[in-house]
């Protein structure tokens, strides 16, 4: 069994450099690699291109990297809820590439699956389609989208084993399995790390082959963005 365990976040981040492209799993603040982001925000690396569905909030998630101006370009589908983001974008220091969410997910999967490009109907006729090839299939126009890959992908799972196999929980799965496939080096941080053999092979969401380094996350805040509840009647 191939052992993917690294014992601390420094080993997990070995090789990260300025001007690299990183992917981050998560939807909003749910399922984000909290420990990796926190550690990256303390490193003196800048000029980063970050691929993530969202951009965190002002003092959490990717907001931490934005605050230190480590990010030069964001590739996302939705970047609200972040005032610092807005300042940098409007002042022109932060480049933003907005991508339909489904295309973002599929482009990451494609990057990991050796599919360099595919056609999708999403964005046809909009500014997203500008400069992209349009082709009709079954009487409907589609645009050609290309694969996304990254120097490092950072993902977060609920449970993982020493072979790198991952199981996610709830909707914290989201982009994590796709970005795990698309990183040249994929770092998985998990809430619980168990020995190989403890997870049911039939329940693995991300097979270990996609993971280069796995570590037990030190601490998870798991912040909730919109706490909505109903009253007990």
């Amino acid at each position: 069994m191939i052992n993917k365990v690294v014992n601390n976040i420094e080993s997990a981040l070995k090789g990260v450099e300025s001007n690299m492209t990183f992917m981050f799993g998560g939807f909003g603040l749910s399922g984000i690699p909290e420990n990796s982001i926190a550690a990256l925000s303390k490193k003196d690396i800048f000029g980063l291109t970050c691929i993530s569905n969202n951009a965190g909030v002002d003092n959490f998630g990717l907001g931490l990297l934005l605050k230190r101006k480590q990010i030069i370009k964001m590739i996302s589908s939705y970047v609200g809820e972040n005032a610092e983001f807005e300042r940098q974008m409007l002042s022109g220091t932060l480049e933003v590439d907005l991508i339909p969410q489904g295309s973002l997910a599929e482009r990451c999967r494609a990057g990991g699956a050796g599919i360099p490009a595919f056609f999708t109907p999403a964005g046809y006729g909009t500014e997203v389609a500008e400069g992209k090839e349009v082709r009709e299939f079954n009487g409907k126009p589609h645009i050609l989208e290309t694969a996304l890959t990254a120097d490092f992908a950072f993902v977060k799972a609920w449970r993982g084993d020493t072979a790198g196999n991952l199981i996610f929980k709830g909707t914290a799965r989201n982009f994590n399995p796709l970005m795990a496939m698309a990183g040249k080096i994929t770092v998985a941080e998990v809430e619980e790390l168990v020995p190989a053999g403890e997870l049911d092979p039939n329940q693995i969401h991300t097979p270990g082959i996609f993971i280069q380094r796995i570590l037990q996350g030190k601490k998870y805040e798991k912040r909730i963005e919109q706490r909505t509840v109903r009253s007990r009647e």
Partner: protein
Amino acid sequence: MSLDKNKIAQRIAQELEHNMYVNLGIGIPTLVANYIPKGIDVEFQSENGVLGMGPFPFEGEEDADLINAGKQTITMMPGAALFDSATSFAMIRGRHVQLTVLGAMEVSENGDIANWKIPGKMVKGMGGAMDLVASAENIIVAMMHTNRKGESKILKKCQLPITGVNCVKKIVTNLAVLEVTKNGFKLLERAPGVSLEEIIKATEAELIIEEEIPEMIL
């Protein structure tokens, strides 16, 4: 009388059919889940990765690992399923989700929709809206008939950057129910107490008005 948001949601809920898979956008569309007609089984899909979404959790039972696309804490119904974002959009793009209800800033008479960007303002992004409108079999827009300045949002041609082309099938506003036909907007129903003249006045686009226009039944 012009409908409030809940009444708009209630009217849209009448469009739900038995055994439909439905994606509800943020805002008024979310309220549709509160008005599912009796005897109708539907399942709600949220594009961040859940099918069979249930109501908000009871206080104290919120789970950071279980949210909807609006980042609100949710619950799951029995028979729910969880999946990644690529599978989620496979459901959407592959037309397995049959009905999408979403808000809009503008809709044009050929069914174009604009709901993601206002030039000059901070752009937050399209999220999953472009995938949804490009693929759903049936797209219903829930919105106010006019914007805050009183200008019509039902237009001959969208002025804002569009989210998708030729996609909207029906619009339910505070004033009316409109169908997008190949000849343009067809007026189907009036809000209770709202006159034909009020609707025409609030609408920039031409309206096809055949026979008498009934009031919505709510």
